[in-house]
């Protein structure tokens, strides 16, 4: 039989490669601007579109879905073709995938600064973009499976299983976490509320880390590391065990993001138990990668690509050891909501995702351009400045997180909080924040140097857009001997493999999500908790638009340090009308769950106009545009109707009178402000925000008064 001739598509790989570099620089620059605002609030340039609450989601989305996303597609499109000995299924689909994905990113760059957000972390994009993501993801899947079906290699190498698991799990995560009820073309409400919404969000959030930032990169590691070191993976059997154990366990660990919240205790315990078990497969993967270099460590000394791989794998090992530790309740009580978590995710993102991406870029580009890397010296400089950048980033953040976490818990011998004012702890860690942004800038500089180096490399070579190859066609299966080993049979059946992976991830999903979503006793209701008034609802939507939950949590954990500081700890029943939940995941400022009626309306007005007038040294930005911008009340009836559809018990026909009630409440607040000599029209956005802030946690106080 004659071997068949065919061509690998290198152009699509190159395009995704350029996209990852460009978006990487943009995403990291936005991150740097956001970081600077945390010690110099005026770095928002006095502009609502570039203020922390709006650009922090832009930063996370850009680095996760644009930088890492394009890097994944680059790695998958290169390795998939070679592992299957086949060209991509359809060049047209590859192109649609590429341009569709870039278009989605551009739409994020436009909508997030405009404040169009669902407020679900790492899933902030509004519903039309969610639909676009689904479509493009399907295009990717069809293209991948099409290639698998026309392959010339019977068995699927382990890297491809990781790609298949990535495809199917991200699809499930994205769909379940995007159940939104549209109110207008760019506004929707999550179908789930409160605790249930939080559980879905963190099941999603955690597994986005697992199946977007981890499994595709593990697949890439299993392909590229053997190529770079020119030796097979240390243990293929370990890679299989690693694969199944990792995807099985990861999906359960989400609730460790919700420890000490009102999530049912058993779900929290499950999250903790599986998080600790997760060390085993994670380290199995890291060790498998590092041991692949056994006997080749001399190469690491000279080869910058391998240096990046070794530091990347080490960062993976550190982050996946730290994750389980952070999920221990004792550690979590200090670390959660603090800069510690920021350090943790950046060790993963900068070290693992970043360094693996750089290694692959440095390895791929010269090969596809049939040339040598333009400058090894510059690449080496990139390695060192990047590594130092990670250290300069992570160490101050660990320091800051630990310091602040402990300060917030400290009591005097008399039994009162030693630092009752949250701001005292913030001011102390500002030097760490300055150092962190230096670390981030160093890392970014490295990436820019890489971009220059690779640009020069491309200039001196010529892209082999279609790389020739030849391989034997597959014989029909019935002519070969039936394989006895079950797993070996699975390795040549992509659909069965996908179904098996799907079943494995659904086990944890169903056991964990279903009881909380369906059994009402898991979310006890509280009689005095009532739906928001129309004005409060509008205020809440502005709170979402401005991304307040990026810095302020809305859940008081049951610790004495927190009940002393904020008030009574949160109950599940308080959040039943919260579509979406707004618990947040980081306390750059204090918790707001019990903010209502703590201060007068005038305090909030002045504080929003310039936080430093009320709290000296505050790092919160000015929100003066809320004072000049008019509240959009035309949307009120549609919002009320949407809430009714979601089961919020507004009386029938309430949408028609909602704006009348809104006007009345707004006028009351404006009149109240007038008493403090603050002249503001009642139709401004600030009035709605004040109304919402004054409502927070008030219902539960009402229970107490009636009980007395």
């Amino acid at each position: 039989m004659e071997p068949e001739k065919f061509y690998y598509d290198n152009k699509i790989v190159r395009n995704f490669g350029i996209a990852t570099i460009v978006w990487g620089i943009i995403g990291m620059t936005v991150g740097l601007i956001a970081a600077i605002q945390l010690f110099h609030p005026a770095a928002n340039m006095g502009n609502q579109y570039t203020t922390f609450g709006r650009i922090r989601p832009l930063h996370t989305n850009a680095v996760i879905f644009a930088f890492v996303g394009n890097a994944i597609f680059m790695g998958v499109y290169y390795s998939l073709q070679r592992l299957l000995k086949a060209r991509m299924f359809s060049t047209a689909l590859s192109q649609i995938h590429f341009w569709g994905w870039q278009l989605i990113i551009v739409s994020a760059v436009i909508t997030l600064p405009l404040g169009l957000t669902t407020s679900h972390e790492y899933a902030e994009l509004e519903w039309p973009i969610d639909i676009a993501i689904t479509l493009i993801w399907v295009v990717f899947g069809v293209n991948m499976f099409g290639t698998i079906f026309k392959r010339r290699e019977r068995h699927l190498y382990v890297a491809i299983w990781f790609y298949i698991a990535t495809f199917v799990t991200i699809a499930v995560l994205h769909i379940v976490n995007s159940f939104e009820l549209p109110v207008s073309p760019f506004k929707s409400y999550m179908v789930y509320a409160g605790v249930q919404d939080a559980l879905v969000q963190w099941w999603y959030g955690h597994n986005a880390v697992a199946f977007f930032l981890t499994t595709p990169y593990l697949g890439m590691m299993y392909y590229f590391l053997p190529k770079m070191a020119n030796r097979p993976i240390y243990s293929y059997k370990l890679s299989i065990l690693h694969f199944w154990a990792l995807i099985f366990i990861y999906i359960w660990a989400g609730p460790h993001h919700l420890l000490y919240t009102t999530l049912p205790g058993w779900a929290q315990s499950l999250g903790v138990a599986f998080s600790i078990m997760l060390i085993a497969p994670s380290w199995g993967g890291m060790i498998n990668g590092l041991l692949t270099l056994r006997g080749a460590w001399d190469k690491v000394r000279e080869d910058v690509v391998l240096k990046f791989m070794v530091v990347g794998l080490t960062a993976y090992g550190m982050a996946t050891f730290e994750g389980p530790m952070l999920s221990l309740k004792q550690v979590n009580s200090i670390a959660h909501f603090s800069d510690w978590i920021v350090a943790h995710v950046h060790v993963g993102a900068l070290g693992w995702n970043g360094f693996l991406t750089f290694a692959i870029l440095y390895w791929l580009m010269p090969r596809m351009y049939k040339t040598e890397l333009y400058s090894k010296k510059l690449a080496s400089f990139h390695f060192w400045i990047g590594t130092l950048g990670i250290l300069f980033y992570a160490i101050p953040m660990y320091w800051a997180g630990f310091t602040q976490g402990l300060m917030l818990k400290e009591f005097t011998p008399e039994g009162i909080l030693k630092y009752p004012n949250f701001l005292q702890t913030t001011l102390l860690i500002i030097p760490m924040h300055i150092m962190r942004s230096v670390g981030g800038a160093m890392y970014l500089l490295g990436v820019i140097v890489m971009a220059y180096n690779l640009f020069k490399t491309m200039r001196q070579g010529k892209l082999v857009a279609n790389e020739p190859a030849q391989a034997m066609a597959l014989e029909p299966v019935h002519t070969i001997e039936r394989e006895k080993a079950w797993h070996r049979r699975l390795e040549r059946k992509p659909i069965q493999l996908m179904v098996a992976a799907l079943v494995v991830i659904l086990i944890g999903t169903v056991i964990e999500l279903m009881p909380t979503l369906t059994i009402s006793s898991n979310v006890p209701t509280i009689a005095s908790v009532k739906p928001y008034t129309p004005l409060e609802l509008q205020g809440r939507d502005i709170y979402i638009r401005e991304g307040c939950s990026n810095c302020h949590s809305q859940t008081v954990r049951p610790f004495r340090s927190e009940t002393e500081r904020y008030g009574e700890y949160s109950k599940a029943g308080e959040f039943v009308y919260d579509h979406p939940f707004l618990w947040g995941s980081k306390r750059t400022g204090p918790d707001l769950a019990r903010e209502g009626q703590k201060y007068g309306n005038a305090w909030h007005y002045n504080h929003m106009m310039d936080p430093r007038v009320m709290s000296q040294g505050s790092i919160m930005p000015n929100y003066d545009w809320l004072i000049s911008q008019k509240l959009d009340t035309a949307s009120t009836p549609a919002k009320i109707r949407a809430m009714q559809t979601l089961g919020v018990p507004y009386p029938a026909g309430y949408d028609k009178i909602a704006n009348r009630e809104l006007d009345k409440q707004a006028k009351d607040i404006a009149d109240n402000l007038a008493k403090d000599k603050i002249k503001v029209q009642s139709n401004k956005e600030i009035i709605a925000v004040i109304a919402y802030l004054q409502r927070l946690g008030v219902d539960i106080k009402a229970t107490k008064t009636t009980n007395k």
Partner: protein
Amino acid sequence: MFKQFTENIQGNQVYLLFSLGIFLVFFIIVTVLLLRLKKSHVDHMSAIPLNDNEGEVLNTQLP
């Protein structure tokens, strides 16, 4: 030393034990499947990324 951690686990222990049980069964099944793999097959699989040098017929087509 670990008592303090296990004591913190609250709520329905059945969920926990049931979930650990499922994982254990799953893990044992995968391990058994792995042990049944032949060395020649494992060697063939782990060599797949390496045999794509230009100008060669790439796949060896082991059954």
